[in-house]
């Protein structure tokens, strides 16, 4: 799932409704462009749709403002909330998609691209992407060899956040291996300071747990194969990973009570709020933004992170995710905006405001506002093993949204209703159905799907 914080379906629906009513207008506004003064795009209106609201939206706005100043174009941002793909689909069906959208799920981008809904990046946009982004991100912005998206914002999903105070009270150090993590968890439980918060009410968190274990246990090659469904979910490595997960989740007192009622936002508050119940929470760099919002402890002091522990001596590996900007038409204004989003300048404006990681290799990393963010950015830029969030690579119905099979099944697993082998079997059944359905929707001859 996207690295974003899900503030609840409510906002999503609200935003979606506002957008449906508010956005039918303005699409036609990009008709005839700008002889009248200002920059090259004066008089143009460009519409951008994204999932961000609140502070993230404001931060993105400053980037768009810079683009407006530079080109004279007017950029309108519309927030679609977490159900953005659903909204884009209805806008597409109505024949009026936005010019640019920022999407968190490559699986959705692939489906849109194969349907012919997206425009391939060309001209300045394509040049900016290849000039500024490492091969990994260019590849993940491509579908069947054609470049469609630029990863404007990225997330490091291989860190576990902890409360140093609790660690001190239990007299434990940051674990480096899976065994150490289990020992630390046990010591925290014995010390009575609270252990790990697993926000099972948000399915995407659970998929991220699995992905980190799987990447370390099975290795990057198998990880790629599983993401593409070239090996079945009943593969022994999957079952073994699920067993590790089960071992941890169902160990006595290892995780906070009643995880299925715990949302991500609440879980962060349960670790870093005024009345902590737990001492650790696994999720990406964006936990920091949530901690800042709470304001009880400072990131880097009362909230620190350690990297996801190594399993059986696995080398350090980073699971990443990101929001990529894609174009729904190949107009010059659209490509100009994408090119700007891919520039070090845009990345710098966003990065300086915090709560933002960029994969732009020409960005001067000293602009990050604090050492913790810089450290996270370094991890993403310098990782030896870098892999994209597996569930996001699968079709939306399987891993990419509310009601997705993988989310649901892992929730059932966390509730204790499934054995690892049974879960693997059911994941495989769901994968066969969802992968087949996703490819069926692509027009014939649109590639073999990876």
């Amino acid at each position: 799932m996207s690295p974003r914080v899900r503030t609840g379906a409510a906002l999503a629906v609200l935003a979606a409704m506002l957008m449906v009513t508010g956005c039918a207008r303005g699409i036609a506004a990009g008709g005839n462009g700008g002889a009248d003064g200002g920059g090259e795009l004066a008089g143009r209106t460009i519409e951008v749709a994204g999932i961000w609201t609140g502070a993230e939206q404001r931060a993105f706005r400053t980037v768009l403002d810079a683009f407006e100043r530079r080109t004279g174009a007017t950029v309108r941002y519309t927030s679609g909330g977490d159900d953005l793909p659903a909204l884009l689909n209805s806008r597409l069906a109505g024949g009026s998609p936005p010019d640019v959208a920022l999407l968190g799920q490559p699986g959705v981008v692939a489906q849109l691209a194969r349907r012919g809904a997206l425009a391939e990046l060309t001209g300045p946009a394509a040049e900016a992407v290849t000039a500024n982004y490492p091969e990994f991100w260019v590849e993940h912005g491509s579908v069947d060899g054609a470049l469609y998206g630029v990863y404007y914002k990225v997330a490091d999903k291989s860190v576990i956040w902890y409360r140093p105070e609790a660690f001190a009270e239990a007299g434990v150090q940051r674990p480096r291996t899976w065994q150490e993590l289990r020992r630390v968890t046990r010591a925290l439980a014995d010390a009575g300071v609270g252990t790990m918060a697993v926000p099972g009410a948000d399915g995407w968190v659970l998929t991220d747990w699995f992905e980190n274990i799987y990447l370390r246990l099975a290795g990057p090659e198998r990880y790629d194969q599983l993401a593409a469904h070239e090996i079945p979910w009943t593969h022994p490595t999957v079952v073994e990973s699920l067993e590790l997960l089960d071992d941890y989740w169902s160990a006595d007192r290892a995780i906070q009570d009643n995880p299925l009622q715990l949302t991500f936002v609440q879980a962060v508050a349960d670790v870093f709020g005024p009345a902590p119940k737990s001492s650790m929470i696994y999720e990406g760099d964006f936990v920091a933004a949530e901690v800042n919002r709470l304001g009880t402890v400072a990131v880097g002091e009362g909230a620190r992170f350690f990297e996801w522990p190594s399993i059986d001596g696995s080398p350090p590996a980073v699971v990443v995710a990101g929001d990529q900007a894609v174009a729904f038409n190949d107009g010059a204004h659209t490509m100009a905006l994408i090119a700007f989003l891919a520039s070090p300048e845009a990345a710098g404006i966003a990065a300086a405001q915090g709560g933002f990681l960029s994969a732009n290799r020409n960005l001067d990393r000293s602009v990050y506002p604090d050492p913790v963010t810089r450290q996270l950015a370094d991890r993403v830029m310098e990782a030896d093993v870098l892999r994209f969030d597996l569930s996001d690579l699968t079709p939306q119905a399987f891993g990419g949204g509310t009601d997705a099979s993988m989310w649901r099944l892992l929730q059932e697993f966390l509730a204790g209703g499934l054995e690892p082998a049974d879960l693997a079997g059911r994941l495989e059944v769901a994968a066969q159905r969802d992968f087949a359905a996703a490819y069926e929707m692509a027009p014939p001859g649109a590639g073999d799907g990876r």
Partner: protein
Amino acid sequence: MSARARTHRRTAVLFLAPTVLIVGALVAYPIVFSFWMSLRSADGSRFVGLANYVEMLTSPGTRRAIANNAVWVVVAPTVVTVLGLMFAVLTDRVRLVKAVRLALFMPMAISFLAAGVTFRLVYDEDPNRGALNAAVVAVHDTFAPASPYPGATVREGSGLRVVDDGAVVTPGTVAAGAVVRLPLVGLPADAVPGHAGEAVPPAAGPGVRGLVWRDFTPGDAGTPGVVDPGEYGLPDVLVEVLRDGEVVAETYTDAYGRFVVPELAGGGYSVRLAAGNFTEPFRGLTWLGPGLVTPAIIGSYIWIWAGFAMVVISAGLASVPRSAVDAARVDGASEWQGLRLVTVPFLRPVLAVVAVTLVINVLKIFDLVLVLAPESVQPEASVLGLEMYHASFTQLNTGLGSAMAVLLFALVLPGMAWRARLLRRQELR
């Protein structure tokens, strides 16, 4: 046909045309189109016959949704109508009728979405956040006081057992004269009371004696099961000494965690730390868990709609002839009989309209469930509207989604027809 009749007809067509056009474009066409889409594949490209309907009726998800819809249809309109009637009759008697009714009607001004978000907070499981659980816990704690060491449990490998109710029991038997060690963990350091001292095992002597302490030293410094320096005794723990399953003595630990029952001699005892020492504080109910989620959502629905029912029924109440009620009163009817035998029969058409309106409204319930049910229990809380949304927009299966829409339409139809008939009958009267 005479020229005049023709003109009449032309005028009629002219006046009807806009309505026909609008109804056709906005109502008839979408219905027919949905039906057509329901016979086609996920992306609408192929004809698949009734396959979508078969999938819909055989999938466990939709079945559960249909079952939930049934619960909704039976419970929500009934409760709302009965509450509305009660409110209408009762508010009729109070001064400031308008103010009271306005207050009760107020929730109608709130959108389902906002109400859902609000109730998500009301139903939150954590009593510090959820208003309802805060109330439940407050009531509970008035009757059942908190335990001294909630969450404490036995040190792994100490041999102690935690029995079903949460009490801690020694393995095997204990003889008088020996010192019984009862190491506990899982307690935060600040849960140890201020008057506690560092744990000191009692000296050997007559009777059953032992030590209860917090067996935790930060890091690897401490040895499990051994009293290490800096480990504190746990005072005021209720200790029970048993023989053959019968409690033969009860005592409390002192400030150093020690307990002694000097009068006991011989062997065959076991020591039990009563469950009451460790009971976790009551945290209320999981309102939005799999078991209670549908009733909880129905509860918020009732909160929203009861005011509406009250207002409509109040309007009906005004048309109940005073003379009939007065006549009943003169004939010696009680308040309840008057309501049951006079007022309600007069109100029957109004009550029917309210109930049927609510049935239709409840069948298409969607937003409240989407917002209120946490993601992890959405399958348990699911209703047809939600299934339709997920099929159409998250799975992008317009065929299946349309099939569900058609089913929903078919379910609403009888209610609609009945209501239309009721309205027509009223007009005729």
